[in-house]
């Protein structure tokens, strides 16, 4: 039985992307702690490995050896699968994100393999759909714990995600209108070239308000500061994962960080021209992608340790009374512009 090298390469790519996502989550934990430390005039983890880079792995080993607790009245099955749903949704969303042109692995393959798990012609909607599946992990975690704090926390997080999903979708729709395509690869390719040879034709320059709406909604979608109510243990007794411990707790954290990476990667593809950039040859284009994603993620962390947390009613008011109208107006203006220019 002969094995198609094309399929082997594709499987290898999937394996690499999966592990890159896990490692990026570990890297984010380390970066978060380091940046936080320097912002607070401390040094941060510096014992395990060079400058503490192995700290996340030490944390994971510690979590593995912790006891797995489950409340007596909890629904065992749903309690077990809730973190799995969260993590799966987070990983699955990244599958349609392109991060480079294509490779033949230095001539090993007959046909080039695009650097992406799969190129769907409705990629933007796929991301949106999978993001909406992530809510179930949170809601089920809260419900199955059979604890008041978990249930209320889950309701809080779910309501937050559903509210900001609308603004998120509106920002995506404006970009789709500009590009005339739902495929992320085509959207990135539409952003090639530059105006007057200086300013790259990235959609951030055509959609500055859309980018802002997308980033704010993205932060709220991933339950991050300043909208991080699951972290508010002092005033709200944390959130949906109150009753979780050990690795199932770690899965929720993994999902949160992978979601952040996905939001940053999608923002890069939609607004910052994906892997497009000067100086580098085509086969190294993914370096630009990584640089842009890293900058957005750094911004995420920077924001978390700079801004105080919102109050819950302020969050809802901001989402529905400000962000959503701005998103709608931006969409209408974009539609008018596209019609006018043609």
């Amino acid at each position: 039985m002969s094995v198609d090298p094309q399929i082997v390469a594709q499987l290898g790519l999937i394996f690499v992307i999966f592990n890159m996502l896990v490692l990026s989550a570990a890297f984010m934990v380390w970066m978060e702690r380091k940046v936080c430390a320097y912002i607070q005039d401390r040094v941060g983890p510096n014992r395990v490995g060079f400058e503490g880079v192995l700290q996340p792995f030490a944390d994971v080993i510690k979590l593995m050896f912790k006891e797995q607790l489950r409340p007596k009245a909890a629904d065992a099955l749903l309690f077990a699968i809730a973190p799995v749903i969260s993590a799966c949704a987070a990983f699955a969303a990244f599958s349609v994100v392109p991060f480079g042109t294509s490779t033949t692995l230095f001539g090993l393959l007959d046909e080039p393999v695009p650097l992406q798990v799969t190129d769907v012609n409705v990629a933007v909607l796929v991301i949106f759909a999978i993001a909406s599946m992530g809510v179930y992990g949170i809601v089920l975690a809260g419900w199955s714990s059979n604890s008041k704090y978990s249930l209320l926390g889950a309701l809080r997080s779910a309501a937050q995600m559903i509210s900001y999903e609308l603004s998120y979708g509106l920002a995506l729709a404006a970009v789709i209108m500009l590009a005339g395509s739902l495929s992320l690869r085509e959207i990135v390719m539409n952003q090639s070239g530059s105006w007057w040879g200086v300013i790259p034709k990235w959609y951030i320059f055509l959609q500055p308000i859309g980018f802002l709406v997308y980033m704010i909604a993205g932060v709220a979608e991933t339950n991050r500061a300043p909208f991080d109510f699951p972290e508010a243990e002092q005033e709200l007794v944390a959130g949906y994962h109150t009753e979780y411990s050990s690795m199932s707790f770690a899965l929720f954290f993994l999902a949160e960080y992978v979601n952040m990476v996905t939001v940053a990667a999608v923002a890069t593809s939609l607004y910052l021209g994906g892997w497009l950039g000067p100086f580098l040859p085509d086969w190294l284009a993914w370096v630009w992608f990584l640089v842009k994603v890293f900058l957005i993620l750094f911004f995420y962390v920077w924001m978390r340790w700079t801004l105080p947390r919102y109050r819950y009613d302020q969050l809802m008011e901001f989402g529905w009374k400000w962000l959503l109208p701005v998103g709608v107006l931006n969409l209408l203006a974009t539609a008018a512009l596209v019609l006018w220019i043609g």
Partner: protein
Amino acid sequence: MDVNALAFYVFAAITILASLGVVGQRNPMYSVMLLITSFGALAGLYVLLDAPFTAVTQIIIYAGAIMVLFLFVVMLLNVPREEPGLPGVLGALGTRGMQIGAVLSLVLGIEIVWALSRVGLGWFGQDAAATSVSSVTLIGKSLFTRHAFAFEATSILILVAMVGAVVIARRER
């Protein structure tokens, strides 16, 4: 076996088993989750039919938006497990209610058989590519030109239902 055929049988089996599970067991929370599973497998079938747009809308609207609503209702009302033989929904319906239900399902079954016999078996043999609905542009164009009236009428209907729900839910202060 062909990979497509295998995928079809897997998705079809999941859809049927999950749908049976929705009505077959007594924990409302599990029913909701099984319904979501069934919708997901259905989306897989749409992908096999070369209609990824329909598949994704199925996930976003049914599995995403509507089922979250179901889940919230089940969670907040804290519907208990239905015990067999106790006056649950079936008990409230009574024998008369069950008889009406049986008649209604019979009518639905006859309708399906009638509808399928009208289109005939040749309809299933059609070339799939000729009637493919995978193009988002095509769907959008026909929705906003040929079916513009139906589209607008539906959206107004939904708006009216929404206003109605707000009016019913609002308490006088």
